[in-house]
């Protein structure tokens, strides 16, 4: 699947916006090979022995952090966790100082999550370390988009020319953005669905279609991605009540009928059951939510391996 003349030459993974189609496919293919070898024979998976990563999380997240940690540890890389409450950030140390300190500890890679958009980009400009964006504000979450794409490809047999709906708070969602950028690069049709407060019309400028009701937005789609509703948005008048939101925008047994018969349902987690998605759909046969989690580790292994070893992973079998 991989083109032989392709060469990876990025220091960082900051977002899908900057990635080319070839780079996206390369990472998906690398993740796939790793996953296959991993299932066959653990010893043959190339290691990152001697490499060390720091996860620097300014925002709580068990899922993404654990996924990166597991990806690193499986490849024998040393992984150190620094979280906002445990780090010096509370003492008023600037992010730049924290990163310079990490750099001085001869680390190879920093995996950063921050509640402000653009922080990984700022860090990347100011350090020699490889920087992996594990989610910045409302901006990007590239490893999540890659694992979503890998899941779609596994279930749909392709990751090009599909009809994909993303439902929920697109405006504040880094998962949505990274998915929109990546899916559009691979020539998919992307529908964004939600109240106008969450889906401003300007998203059409990225090649997506904007809908404000589920019937139109989910009509004939192969994939439905449901986003987590952040409850603090209610106080800021983005939606009046949870009850009303669920009534009009919840993906449930009824609204899922608008999608194709064989559509798959995705969610980046953690889920507000009964709010953005009903339990029967989440736990139903169309749901691939747990498959997403599994692929998360493979994708993050591929990202770490690609950035840290610089080379291509060849399956020796």
């Amino acid at each position, binding site marked *: 699947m991989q083109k032989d003349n392709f060469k990876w030459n990025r220091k960082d993974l900051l977002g899908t*916006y900057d990635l080319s189609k070839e780079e996206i496919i390369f990472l998906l293919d690398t993740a796939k090979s790793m996953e296959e070898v991993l299932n066959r024979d653990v010893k043959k998976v190339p290691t990152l022995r001697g490499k060390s990563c720091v996860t620097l999380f300014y925002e709580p997240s068990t899922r993404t952090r654990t996924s990166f940690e597991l990806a690193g540890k499986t490849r024998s890389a040393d992984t150190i966790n620094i979280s906002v409450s445990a780090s010096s950030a509370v003492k008023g140390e*600037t*992010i*730049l100082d924290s990163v310079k300190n990490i750099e001085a500890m001869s680390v190879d890679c920093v995996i950063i999550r*921050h509640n*402000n*958009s*653009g*922080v990984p*980009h*700022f860090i990347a400009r100011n350090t020699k370390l490889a920087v992996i964006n594990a989610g*910045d*504000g*409302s*901006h*990007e979450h590239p490893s999540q988009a890659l694992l979503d794409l890998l899941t779609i490809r596994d279930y749909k047999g392709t990751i090009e020319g599909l009809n994909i709906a993303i439902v929920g708070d697109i*405006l*504040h969602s*880094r998962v949505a*953005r990274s998915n929109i950028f990546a899916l559009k690069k691979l020539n998919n049709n992307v529908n964004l669905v939600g109240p106008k407060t969450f889906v*401003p019309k*300007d*998203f059409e*400028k*990225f090649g997506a279609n904007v809908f404000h009701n589920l019937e139109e937005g989910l009509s004939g789609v192969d994939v439905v991605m449901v986003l987590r509703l952040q409850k603090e948005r209610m106080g800021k008048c983005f939606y009046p009540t949870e009850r009303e939101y669920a009534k009009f925008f919840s993906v449930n047994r009824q609204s899922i009928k608008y999608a194709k018969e064989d559509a798959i349902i995705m969610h980046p987690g953690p889920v507000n059951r009964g709010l953005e998605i009903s339990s029967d759909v989440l736990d139903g046969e169309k749901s691939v939510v747990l498959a997403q989690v599994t692929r998360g580790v493979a994708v993050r292994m591929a990202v770490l391996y690609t950035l840290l070893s610089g080379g291509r992973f060849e399956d020796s079998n």
Partner: protein
Amino acid sequence: MKIVINNATVVTSSGVFRKNILIKDCVISKISDSPISERGASFVINDKDLLVFPGFLDMHTHLREPGFEYKEDIETGLRSAHYGGFIGVAVMANTNPVNDCSTVTHFMICRAKETGIPVDLYPIGAITKGLNGETLVEMGELRSAGVVAFSDDGKSVTNSEILRRAFEYAETFNMPVICHSEESYLSKDGQINEGEISLLLGLKGIPREAEILGIYRDLTIAKLTGGAIHIAHVSTKEGVELIRKFKKEGLSVTCETCPQYFTLTEKEVLGYNTFAKINPPLRTEEDRLAVIEGLRDGTIDVIASDHAPHHLDEKNCEFQNASFGMIGLETMVPLCLELVRMGILDFKDLAEKLSRRPHRILNLNSPKIKEGEPANLTIIDPHFEWEVNEKTIHSKSINTPFLNKKLQGKAKYVIKGGEAFELF
């Protein structure tokens, strides 16, 4: 002291002429068509490429002293103004303490005099105490102390009733009010212009409508009170259109824009460039062109810098936490000359927008290039190419999106108080 300027292109209100000027004892004593004898002159300028303008005044500057001397102080700010070609600056009140009482006003004026830098400092008083938007300052007393206008710049007076009274009360003392026009609920927590780029970067946008509504509100209240108001840093197409409309209806309104708004667009923030984070934010290409049209047709009276120095630590950080503002005193001349090079303005227009209009709006005597008038001149080399960097900039801060860029044109001499100053 005798200063001779021979073979210069002189920009006066009636046109642009090749003239020779003799300055004696602070006064322009002779303007002639034939060269003036350079014998006995203590300073001679003889360069046919230079342009002689009436001295420039920047009516929108933040000098940060008192309170924020780590960003800029009166001395470094005035030096920056001097090297930018200005003979005067009007400085905003958002210092700490705020310039809302005569003590602060006196302090600023005295500090400026102590520096010995040949730039006049004209303090602008706050409209409300501590910029709280609630209680009026003692405008009469502040005027006596030397304040030339009132402004809560940095924010808008949210309460329209208070703004109305401020306009009326300022009018009592024949003092202009400078409005930072912004509907602050709409712009709250915003980082950059709202639109495609704010969506792309995942940053909260400041809709253009925040400025448009602000300008409309301020103009409407000015119409009610009949007071003289000046709208600061216009950045939107509809803002320009509204001012054009109200001017046509006879309202006594003036306005300014800044070089950043006719030179740059919101694209400048791509890559989370904090140096391009300013308020009002850089807007769209359509807005930029409308601002240029406003300058061309005279709707926009003044070009001001909105010089807003910040320490590097306040810019070299997360975009969200970075301060708003950019320095502008030393990049003013080359960026304005660009308008002339593009054929949008001529040199006479520049003299209007950088010298005569700002002086008049602040009720100050505007320098004239006429025999018998005090010699306050800004002399420009329009061709000189230079790079904006730490070495060439005299401000204490270097926060500008033009950093490390090459610009064309620079003030070469300033003549003020009977003395000639060579700037490079």
